């Protein structure tokens, strides 16, 4: 299937359109909110919340016996919130550290959820099929009403984000200061947390509890590398998230046996990888290039300074010396000498070198500059 054909299919095929829209919206909203989670240093909270949601799904199924995903998501929301507050309680009231609390709640809730799921599976109730999808997600089961729910939550989230943009920003940057300005920091905090939990719960059906946290982190971590503005970061994260959703759906739809969740996560991870390496200001590639360039410059300057040191002892600064004496000097290589010649700082004559007028001047300036910098 080629690309144009696929694009046509997205617009004509009901199922594919629903899934593509759903994953795109989901990616956008998790990317947006993930930016806040990342900046608040609560990256792994998402992982804990998504795992903690599992028993909620099972219990609400046991109580209602319904397969309606909205009811199940309500259960997930409640148990996700319980998990979140228990984590806070553990950190606050005991000497267990946050990573232990996260790991505890994550694994214990998940294990309990598994107990309930296997229990349900063995019940003589034919209605139970489909709960598995919450483990790894099954985008194929998305229906139009699910997408509507996502769209509504995303819309609400956008409105709140725009309204309280200033408050969110200042709270994320400097909570104590925000308090002194008279803002109710608890309210802002609860608002952010609630929306993060909501976004996670919404994504469970599509991506599953195991991989949900990546949807939150990856787009945000990628977006952070390209900009130094919070607004642009949130926007980019939403964009990366949405693209991950669309591409992931496309790839998994064009192959057999590929569930959508893991593919979306891989696509998002590729975004992260590219951003880490190729971002112009923070990326590893350019950092490495700058590092090498700086080291070269330093070597060049060192060699020039060494030559200057020797030339200084002679009345005629252009007095020739053998290249041999340079060999003892650490920073010296053939290529640095070539470069110095190229820059017209040094004249080479067979095995002898001499400083030019220009080279001498640059070298003495180098000393002055260094002493300037040290001040």
């Amino acid at each position, binding site marked *: 299937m080629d690309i144009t054909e696929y694009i046509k299919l997205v617009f004509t095929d009901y199922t594919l359109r629903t899934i593509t829209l759903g994953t795109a919206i989901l990616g956008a909203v998790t990317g947006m909110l993930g930016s806040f989670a*990342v900046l608040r*240093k609560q*990256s*792994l909270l*998402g*992982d804990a919340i998504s795992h903690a949601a599992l028993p909620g799904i099972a219990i609400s199924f046991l109580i209602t016996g319904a397969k309606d995903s909205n009811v199940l998501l309500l259960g997930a929301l409640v148990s996700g919130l319980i998990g979140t507050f228990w984590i806070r*309680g*553990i950190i606050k*009231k*005991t*000497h*267990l*550290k946050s*990573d*232990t609390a*996260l*790991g*505890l709640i*994550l*694994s*214990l*809730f*998940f*294990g*309990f*959820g*598994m*107990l*309930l*799921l*296997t*229990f349900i599976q*063995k019940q003589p109730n034919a209605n139970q099929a489909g709960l*598995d999808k919450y*483990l*790894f997600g099954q985008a194929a089961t998305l229906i139009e009403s699910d997408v509507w729910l996502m769209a509504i939550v995303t819309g609400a989230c956008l409105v709140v984000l725009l309204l309280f943009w200033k408050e969110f920003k200042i709270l994320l940057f400097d909570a104590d200061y925000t308090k002194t300005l008279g803002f109710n920091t608890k309210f802002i905090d609860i608002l952010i947390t609630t929306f993060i939990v909501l976004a996670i719960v919404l994504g469970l059906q599509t991506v599953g509890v*195991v*991989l949900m*946290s*990546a949807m*939150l*982190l*990856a787009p945000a*971590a990628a977006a*952070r*590398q390209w900009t130094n503005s919070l607004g642009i970061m949130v926007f980019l994260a939403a964009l990366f998230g949405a693209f991950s959703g669309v591409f992931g759906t496309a790839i998994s739809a064009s*192959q057999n*046996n*590929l*569930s959508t*969740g*893991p*593919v979306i*996560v*891989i696509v998002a*991870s590729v975004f*992260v990888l590219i951003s*880490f390496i190729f971002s112009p200001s*923070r990326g*590893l590639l350019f950092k490495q290039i700058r590092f090498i360039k700086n080291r070269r410059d330093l070597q060049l300057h060192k060699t020039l300074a060494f030559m200057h040191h020797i030339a200084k002892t002679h009345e005629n600064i252009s007095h020739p010396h053998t290249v041999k004496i340079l060999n003892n000097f650490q920073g010296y290589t053939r290529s640095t000498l070539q470069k110095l010649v190229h820059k017209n700082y040094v004249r080479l004559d067979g095995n002898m070198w001499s400083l030019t007028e220009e080279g001498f001047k640059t070298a003495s300036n180098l000393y002055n500059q260094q002493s300037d910098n040290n001040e």
Partner: protein
Amino acid sequence: MSNAQIEIQLIASLVAIACAIPGTFLVLRKMAMISDAISHSILPGIVIGFFITQDLNSPLLILLAALTGIITVILVEYIQKTGLVKEDTAIGLVFPALFSIGVILIAKNANDVHLDVDAVLLGELAFAPFDRLLIAGVDVGPKSLWIIGCILLITIGLLFAFFKELKISTFDVGLSASLGFSPTIIHYGLMTVSSVTTVGAFDAVGAILVVALMIAPAATAYLLTTNLKRMLVYAICFGVFSAMSGYWLAHWLDASIAGSITTMLGLLFLVIYLFAPNKGVIAVLYREKQQRTEVSLLTFLLHLRNHSEEEERHVNHLNEHINWQKVRSKTVLELALKNNMIVIDNDVVSLTEKGNDFTSQAIDYIITNEDSKIEHMKDDFFLFRG
């Protein structure tokens, strides 16, 4: 009990012990979430290992998968070092990516690989007794029993051999480096053991629930003691207890054994979390209330010492200036009276000699940063606690 039942419980208990030992150190080193990351990211290692060996119980597969665990740790640390993202974001980025690769590898090769993601994540202990190890045609027991047994033996051996080094490097990195134990080697040693244990245990209890067996017993034990040896022993006991009781819970409910074991761990943690004598929530809340009153008392006594003016020592002043509610003021006054720290004369409060002594000592301790001594002092002075 049938033979199979005994074997299952034995395997579960050995897994619990093998997890509790590295788990204790992970919890103490604030690295609990690393075990979660490892448990996910070994999946591609298991799949690739399975391509090569075609045997889930092969030692080679265990080593390959454990290697993925180490790679995870190295990757996480590398990303942290670049400073591109904040600390734990690195963990959250690495393991879902590796896990997804594993899931896709399985899906793409579904025909050749008789592996299923559920089994890797959740395990199926109930089938463990069916895969027997035959040596020269003689049945010597279930394979997984031997595997986890070997891992446990190695773990225990390493624990005894390097106990001192582990202890020092966990509590004081600087000291251990200056004594010549490389913290890096200990760190990666611990990571290796955790990875191997996770891989070895995955087909019994599943990779994710290994995390529960590593963290929960250690965390529960940490609420009861801060002594490392005791913590190890408690953690092992909690692990084994949950393994046994979890098995019977599963038997009774006809549900996943791993899920039941975790649920038992959860219940155990909940009980200890609430009722632990010193660090449980109820004890903490009670102590906070007591200390709140006692600190208020100290505050009040100091106030009396600082001020000789009558108006500052008037009973009403407590409400007006110290800003306390009526009830609180009353509690504090009563406590001070009961302990003979103050006398009230015509609504004006004065320190007794005992109150004066107590206050002076308390100030000395606080200013010299020896707050802990105040608790002992309270025992000497107080007839009644707050």
